[in-house]
Structure formats: C-alpha cells, structure tokens
C-alpha cells in the first residue's frame, strides 16, 4: 500500500511539472495557434539557469533554506527572452503552419547549443539541497516536503491562470483574441501586445517548470526534446488550447508513467503514445478541447 502511495505521489509530482510546461504550450496555441516545439527548450533553460542562480545566491550569503526563491526568481527572470522570441515568430504568423513549426524547431536547435556553450555537455545538478526542507509523513510513507511544495505551486498556477483568463480584463481581451483575431483587432484590441504578453507568459511557465524540477533531477541537454513529446501528449489528451485539459492531461501522463515505470517498465512511454493515438482517433479534440479536426 505504501509503495502504491509513493508511486502516486511521484506521478503527481511529475504531473505538476508537466502541467506548467503544457499550460504554456496551451496558452500559446490557444491564442496564437502556434505549436511551440521550443517549450521544452525553455524548460531546459529554466533548469540550467535555476542551478546557476541557486549556486550564485548561496555563494552570496542566501540562507540555504531560501533556495526555492532563487529558483522562482530564475524562472520568472527568464521572461526577458519571451518578447524577442515572439518578435521572431511574428514574421510567420500569416504563413502556413509548417513554417511556424519549423521556426520553433530551429529554436530547439539554437537553444540546445546555447545551453551547451554556457553549461557544457555534462549534466548539472544541485545535489540533495531539496532535502533541507525535510520530509512529511512517517516510516515507509515519507515524502520530501519540496515535492509537495512544487505540487502546491502548480495548483496555485492552475487556479491563478484560470482566474486570470476568466475574471480579469486582460484575460477577457486574451480570450477574445483567441476567438477571433480580426474582429478583436477591429474592436481596438492591440493584438500584437496581447501576443507578446501571451507568449512571454507561456515562456515563463516553461522556465518555471524547469527551475522547479531541477533540485530533484539533473539538468541535461536531452531534457528539452524529451519533454516536448510529453508536453505534447498532455495537450493532445487534454485537448489543444484548454487549461483544464492541461491539468487532466498532465495527471494522466504523470500517473501513467509513474505506474508503468514501477510495473511494466517497457511500457513507460509506449503506454502514453497509445493513449495519445487513441484520443486522436476517437476524440481528436481531446477530452476538454473544442477545436474540431
């Protein structure tokens, strides 16, 4: 029974991180209709920057216990790359989606080498700093507090994002733009500005996801291309463009992976793709999507 709970919590933790990246993918797709293959690269960038930020802050007198803030700072600080990347993508908004996909694929190649230039080809890690937060629970069932904090943070982001989209003025502008770009522009919405903000928000969700995961897993150059396919599975299962779908999709993928790793390791990724294909065939709009094929 305890091992079952262990697996469950491991899966939920993975789902929490996946959700952050996938939510970024969803936002950008929902509004800009672009599938951003570079979302995994933003995630990797967040992870590497997170390590450097924590190392730097600890060397400059940050108490060990506050390392989480250095990570969050790194994740949020990477917002600066959002606007320039969006400006690049702006050149292909009116083009065929093949070009949009390819442009984000070019970013995957470029960012991978930038990471290699700055941090080298060897994986980087933070040691087990995160165990400073201790554990929750007793005996066989103990969970690192840090993992629970990350799950809570992802939940907060999910709720915050939902409220932002539903309740705030900017959220409404954003949804209007997603619904109909031309009409929104006619009604005086600055579509260009909305796009910049949305893309930057999407970027930050990715970098934050990477920064938060890095205390528990090493940062490596492969993490970007590996994560993209998982994030992609999440949005397909949940439905393209839907934040609620991203929550459900992330939980599905996270839990399925965790249980597959423990019981049928061969099926770790295979099971996920099988579900993705089943969803695409029987319900192409995903569980919560409204877009028709």
């Amino acid at each position, binding site marked *: 029974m305890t091992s079952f709970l262990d697996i469950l919590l491991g899966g939920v933790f993975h789902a929490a991180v996946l959700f952050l990246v996938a939510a970024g993918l969803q936002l950008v797709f929902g509004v800009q209709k672009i*599938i951003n*293959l570079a979302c995994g690269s933003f995630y990797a960038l967040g992870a590497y920057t997170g390590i450097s930020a924590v190392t730097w802050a600890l060397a400059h007198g940050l108490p060990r216990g506050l390392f989480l803030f250095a990570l969050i700072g790194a994740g949020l600080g990477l917002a600066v790359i959002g606007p320039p990347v969006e400006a*690049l993508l702006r*050149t*292909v908004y009116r*083009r065929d*989606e*093949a*070009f949009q*996909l*390819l*442009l984000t*694929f*070019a*970013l*995957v*190649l*470029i960012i*991978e*080498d*930038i990471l*290699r*230039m700055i941090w080298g080809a060897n994986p980087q890690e933070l040691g087990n700093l995160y165990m400073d937060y201790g554990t929750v629970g007793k005996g066989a069932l103990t969970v690192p507090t840090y993992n629970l904090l990350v799950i809570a943070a992802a939940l907060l982001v999910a709720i915050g994002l939902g409220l932002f989209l539903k309740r705030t003025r900017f959220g409404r502008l954003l949804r209007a733009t997603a619904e109909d770009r031309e009409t929104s522009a006619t009604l005086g919405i600055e579509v260009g500005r909305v796009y910049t903000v949305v893309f930057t928000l999407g970027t930050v969700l990715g970098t934050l996801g990477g920064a938060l995961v890095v205390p528990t897993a090493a940062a490596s150059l492969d993490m970007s*291309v590996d994560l*993209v*396919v998982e994030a*992609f*599975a999440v949005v*397909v299962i949940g439905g*393209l463009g839907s934040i609620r779908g991203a929550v459900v999709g992330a939980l599905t993928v996270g839990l399925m992976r965790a249980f597959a790793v423990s019981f049928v*390791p*061969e*099926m*770790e*990724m*295979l099971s996920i*793709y*099988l579900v*993705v*294909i089943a969803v*695409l*065939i029987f319900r*192409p709009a995903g569980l919560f999507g409204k877009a028709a*094929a």
Partner: protein
Amino acid sequence: MKLAAVVGLAALAALAAAPLVLEPYPLTLLLQFFAYGLALLGLNLLFGYTGLLSFGQALFVALGAYSAAVCTRKLGWHSFELVLGVAVVTAVVVAVPVGLLCVRYVSIFFGMLTLAFGMLFHSFLFKFYTVTGGDGGMLVERPSLLGMRFSEMDKTTFLTRPFYWYALGLLAVGTVVMWRLVHSPFGVHLSAIRENPRKAEYLGVEVRRLRLIAFVIAGVYAAVGGTLLGIRTGLADPELAYWTHSGNLIFMTVLGGFSSFAGPLVGAAVFIFLQDSLMSVTQYWRLVMGMVLVVIVVLFPRGLVGLAQALRARVIGWRRDARAD
C-alpha cells in the same frame, strides 16, 4: 520537361563518375545523400504535393534500417534485393493502417498523429531490448548485390564502389518514378487536394483514398532510404525514429524548397554537406543549422530552389531590359 531531363542526366553522370575522382569520405556523404534523397522525394509527395505535413516520417526510415538489420543479422538473408523487398512490404503493411487513421485529419492534427506513431515506434525500439537491441540498436551486415558478395573488398571500398552505384541507381529510378507520378493525373489530383480538398471532392477526386496512396508511397520511399542508411552506417538505432529526425527531414525539404520537384534533393545534399563541414569546424553546429533554418523560413520560404528561380527570373528580366534599351 526537356531541360529537367538534361539537368537530371548530367547530375546522374557526374554522380556516377564521382567514385573515380573523389576520396572515400565525400563518397560516403553522397551515399547518405542518396538515402535521404529517396526519403525526401517521398516526403515531398505528401507535404509539397498533397499538403500533408508528416512529423513522423522518421518512423519509415527506421523501419527500413531495421528491416535491413533483421534480414542480414537475424535471418541471415544477405541478398539486398530481398532486403529491399522486405523493407517495402513492411513499409506498406505499416503505412496502410497508420495511413488509414492519419489521413482522416489534415494540418496540425495529421502532424500530431504521425508524430505520435513515430514516437510509439521509437519507444518500442528503445525499450524492447530482446527484440530490437534497445538503445544500442542492431547491427546491419553487408548485403550481397545482385547475388555478388564482394567479400574480397574492405568495407569502405564496398560502400564507395558497388554499393554506391547501386544506391545511385535506386535514387535515379526513384526520381524518375516520382517524376512520372507527380506529372500523372494522380499527381494533379494530389495538388488539387492540397489547394482545395472540398472542390476536389466535388469534382470526383477520392480525397482520402489518394491521400492514403500518397502516404503509403512516401512510407515506401522512406523505408528504401532507410535500408541504404542502415547499410552505410552498419547500424539501425532507435534515434532514427526519434521526432527530431522527422524534424530534420522537413528541415531538408524546406531548405531545398518544397514547391519544386528538385527542391528536396537539393535540400538533402546541402543539408548533409553543410552539417558535415560545420561539425568538423565547431561543436556548436546545431546553432548554425538552426540559424540557417530561421533565415530560410523567414526570408526564403521557397527554399534554395525558389531563390535560384527568383534570381534567374531577375537576370532574364535585366537582359530583356538591356535589350529594350
């Protein structure tokens, strides 16, 4: 039509003479070009002519390479003609059901579904060690060509002489067949489907059936290219099926220009030689390749062939102007 035949024959003659002049290393790169050239001719039937962007074409390349590995290594079938036959049959057997599911969708959904199938195959290759050799892949043994084993030759000589010419022959045949295909009523129907599937349907074009046929042909071309790749490296490994490999295939197609017949061939050649020379200069070759892709996508969406055509049109324009003066 005539010009294309002349250019094609000249290129074929030059490539056929290459082993007499060039060092082995560039010849192995050309071999890689023949393999990718075949895969891209197929991909462009799907993408450039039919308008379906497959992000899982690497699946079929891997299928070809693994067919070669299974035939030569596990079954001891060394005849390359037999390997090709197995690769083609396997590609058809996989492409028909996968295609039936995929061609119901277009644009981004088609892309995602093909990506998912590609990754499904990748994780199968990667995880089922006992069947596929896992991440180490499977070795591919030297095949016999038309019954000849060439066992007295070392590997490089085999690859750069008999196998080189054989592969060039395959590419030439593949190119001619594809040329006939895209200029046949079938090819015209595919273009009609790309331009306006609804209208094509009204005019009696069986959209899904033709899309499926294009999908299967593309898969067969990729698998044949895959057998060449597998024999060239002597290895079939799961990375061949990874999604970034599919991304590279589209990269090559767009680099050359998907709106012209020769574009993918030009793209494959330029990509392979550019990547190779970059790799010998810097470990950051991905960065440069990425930037090249950005420039192509943003500034020259019709690729190198489109650029060449535009330049040619301009030069002809200048000459005409000069004459008019």
